[in-house]
């Protein structure tokens, strides 16, 4: 049994909130640069140059890349041989978010009740996913997620007879309907299988994988490649103003499902797809 003081988790969460929001990860940055070189529309090329300039400026000044610094989504893989000390783990995570959003001059975008809509003033609570793993370490990933793109995400409860074509059509339909709203170029996370809530979580987890990475399942890898290629033929382009850069990356995660179902979730994200991770 290894003891971990929750203060360590709090401090890690705080640092990661600031870093994720100000420093665009190398995978996304590289994908924008590559797209800028290959974009065929002049307006689109110019927009992609501005995104590169924006990311450079944000990192240099430690300012948020985008003003929508999102809801903090926290994934924790906790080794089963870990014992937390020093108080509540969830409180420590939220305290880390509170400190990070305050000290990092990040926007407070959370309301305490979806209908009463009063801002909590400190961007808490976070959305926290706990997972039990083997070992005595804690792996923490933070993915602040803006809602311009979150609002364009969808769940489809497909039938087994819809098959792989049904999945492909639904993903492309979701991207096309999102159009200019989620600040294209987008990054798309797809979850297939599980049940109603798990497919959504898989789609979110797919966004944690680096842009340009691939599923280790060959049949899924093929679908990732095909959908990315077809999405970039939709013509939406940077900011929806036309071009061949609509989606920078498309990752799929899968899970077993029921004989009667083919759940599918598409989590649309933007060119400011952020994540930061560490192991305590």
């Amino acid at each position: 049994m290894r003891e971990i003081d929750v203060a360590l988790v709090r401090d890690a969460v705080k640092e990661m909130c600031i870093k994720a929001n100000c420093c665009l990860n190398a995978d996304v940055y590289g994908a924008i640069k590559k797209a800028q070189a290959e974009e065929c529309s002049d307006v689109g090329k110019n927009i992609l140059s501005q995104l590169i300039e924006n990311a450079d400026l944000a990192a240099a000044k430690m300012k948020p890349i985008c003003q929508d610094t999102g809801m903090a989504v926290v994934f924790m893989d906790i080794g089963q041989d870990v014992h937390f000390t020093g108080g509540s783990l969830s409180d420590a995570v939220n305290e880390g978010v509170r400190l990070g959003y305050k000290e990092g001059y990040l926007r407070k975008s959370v309301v305490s009740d979806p209908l009463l809509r009063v801002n909590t003033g400190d961007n808490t609570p976070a959305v926290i996913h706990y997972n039990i793993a083997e070992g005595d370490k804690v792996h923490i990933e933070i993915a602040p997620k803006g809602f311009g793109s979150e609002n364009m995400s969808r769940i489809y409860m497909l039938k087994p007879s819809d098959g792989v074509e049904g999945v492909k059509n639904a993903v492309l339909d979701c991207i096309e309907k999102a159009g200019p709203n989620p600040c294209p170029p987008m990054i798309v996370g797809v979850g297939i299988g599980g049940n109603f809530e798990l497919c959504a979580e898989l789609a979110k987890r797919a966004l944690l994988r680096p842009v340009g990475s691939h599923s280790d399942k060959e049949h899924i890898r093929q679908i990732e490649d095909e959908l990315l290629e077809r999405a970039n033929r939709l013509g939406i382009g940077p900011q929806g103003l036309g071009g061949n850069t609509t989606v920078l990356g498309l990752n799929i995660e899968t899970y077993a499902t029921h004989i009667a179902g083919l759940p599918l979730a598409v989590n649309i994200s933007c060119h400011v797809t952020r994540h930061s991770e560490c192991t305590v």
Partner: protein
Amino acid sequence: MKIDITTPITREKARSLKAGDIVSITGVIYTARDAAHKRMLENLQNGIPLPVDLTDNTIYFAGPAPAKPGEPIGSVGPTTSYRMDAYSPKTIELGLTCMIGKGARSSAVIDAMKKYGAVYIGAVGGAGALLSECVKKCEVVAYEDLGSEAIHRLEVENFPGIVIIDSEGNNLYDTEPPKYRK
């Protein structure tokens, strides 16, 4: 065509701008997003006047990040405009001539733009750090309790945008993507 615009923007000036024009805006603009629009129009129904006269004014659909010490404002890019579609026909009727945002608008908004003479300008979504460099001064003028969603008065210099929907209803989101569809 690249056009320098100085606010306020008259109806006549708004009507002269065409979809596809690259613009650079200098002058005073106001931020307002979901909560500020809701409150403005609810107040109006109850006979409470608007905190800002909208005549010939520009609303930037945006909620800035907090300013760091010594800077006028934090990152401030556009938010998705369709969430203001329920309110924009009314604000246009009340005199608004220019909206800055990102993403599609409803036919009701476009009808009001045509009827009264107003323009919809796109700023690059997600370029909040870069766009904040164009803001020289920022002060909260109403609804301070809304935090980032309060109405901010911004003085901007050479704020870059592109006319997406003009007062004749021409719309780049409809005309441009099909050209690149394969």
